[in-house]
């Protein structure tokens, strides 16, 4: 799926397309869909604020083989929804520093999109219930395994792993029954 859908453009902000898969029951926090295709900016705020990102879940599938049934949001939607509509309340707290995030317009520093940003993005724009079961202290909750292109994220720098177009990220809960 490499660069086929990615049209190089100098005017529009560059985005990357990612495939997200859930396992071990974690999909239940994300509307029950096991497979999601999302598009996020290639460069993102250093403080992981997702306020300026528009929800760009291209499609969600309940299984990897299924055809898309109900795309939650269309890609490149013309009118970005207000960032305060999903779960995340207006009181965003930077869980790493513990301080309140500055207004996203105030801090213009950016970084290449990484897994840490993706986790914040997923919480703010994709999660449908109980964010505390997904995220804790700025990262995924202990007991959730993350694989980046089938490699244990502990070998890829965890949250600091930079993402590129076409990457596949798998989140598996180990906390559900044996």
């Amino acid at each position, binding site marked *: 799926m490499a660069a086929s859908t990615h049209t190089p453009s100098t005017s529009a902000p560059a985005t990357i397309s990612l495939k997200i898969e859930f396992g071990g029951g974690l999909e239940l926090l994300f509307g029950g869909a096991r497979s999601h295709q999302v598009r996020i900016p290639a460069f993102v705020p250093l403080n992981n604020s997702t306020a300026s990102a528009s929800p760009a879940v291209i499609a969600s599938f309940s299984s990897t083989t299924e055809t898309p049934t109900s795309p939650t949001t269309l890609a490149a939607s013309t009118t970005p929804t207000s960032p305060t509509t999903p779960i995340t309340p207006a009181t965003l707290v930077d869980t790493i520093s513990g301080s309140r995030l500055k207004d996203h317009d105030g801090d213009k520093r950016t970084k290449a999109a990484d897994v840490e940003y993706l986790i914040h993005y997923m919480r703010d724009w994709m999660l449908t219930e109980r964010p505390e079961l997904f995220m804790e202290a700025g990262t995924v909750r202990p007991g959730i*395994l993350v694989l980046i292109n089938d490699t244990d994220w502990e*070998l890829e720098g965890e949250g600091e792993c930079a993402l590129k177009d076409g990457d596949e990220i798998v989140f598996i809960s180990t906390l559900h029954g044996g």
Partner: protein
Amino acid sequence: MAPRPCALCQKAKAMVKRPKTGQQICRDCFFYVFETEVHNTIIQSKLFSPGDRVAIGASGGKDSTVLAYVMKTLNERYQYGLELFLLSIDEGITGYRDDSLETVKRNQQQYDMPLKILSYNELYGWTMDAIVSQVGRKNNCTFCGVFRRQALDRGAAMLNVDHIVTGHNADDIAETVLMNIMRGDIARLGRCTSICTQGEDTICRSKPFKYAYEKEIVMYAYFKKLDYFSTECIYSPDAYRGHARAFLKDLEAARPSAIIDIIHSGEAFEIKEEIKATQKVQQTCQRCGYMSSNALCKACTLLEGLERGMANSGITDRVRKKMEAEGPAPENLRNIPFFTQASGSPAIAVSVALDAT
């Protein structure tokens, strides 16, 4: 980040970081070390003898699915000479157990093992759905735990097996150690860490995954694309265990060896003789023949409470006293079929094992 080579073969790309050792290894080496460690556990603990009939307690979840796969693999690779069966208990929970049993039925095909399903309804005349509708969601885990334990033993007796293996992993055992310490249940500490438990007249139960980390079991299932079911039981999950689990995961995040350390500390507790003496002597239940520390086993007590509509008032001791106060059990009370233990001679035809449904 530049791909690192595997610490074992030095060739392939490392894909897993082992929680126990921090070693970074490739997929094939991971399969090999995971399977070999389980094999070493089996050999060092002398779990089986050639010709043993072994039932794998199968729930359709990750642990028992991986256990069935690994037991089959090791039995063939090292010629253990075991006859393997899948044994599932159907608690009768609509939307949960019925779905996970579908997974077990697929495992039966995939692993080519005979499957026996024993239901609460068949054994006790009550499904968990019916129990919950009478007792509510607060105490239902007590019923389920007592009924499951006896059902597994009885299913194993029907299969005439020598041994039941369950998918309890290192995380589960560490969690149980923590819970027993927090409850002050020192008598149970020793038993919960032992790899194999055998009651007076029960079939041996053991845990070949005693030293296998949950992370590795889940990684193994993921890389092998094993078919497992993962949904929490719809009835009130054990909240106490849930907290112990979250605590353990936090400890593990800070220090991965915490899980093995806790198991070792559980093993290190020695039970003094006087404490052992206060543990009750095993006898058999006068109503159903199952082993029991009282005249009536826990399952019969709970069942009588259900049948007499008194299960709400509490659990076991209190219920028993109340029922005794109200006079003897009515004649028409539903009973659990009398338990006859497997004693060398197959009491029940082996063909029940080939439950093809």
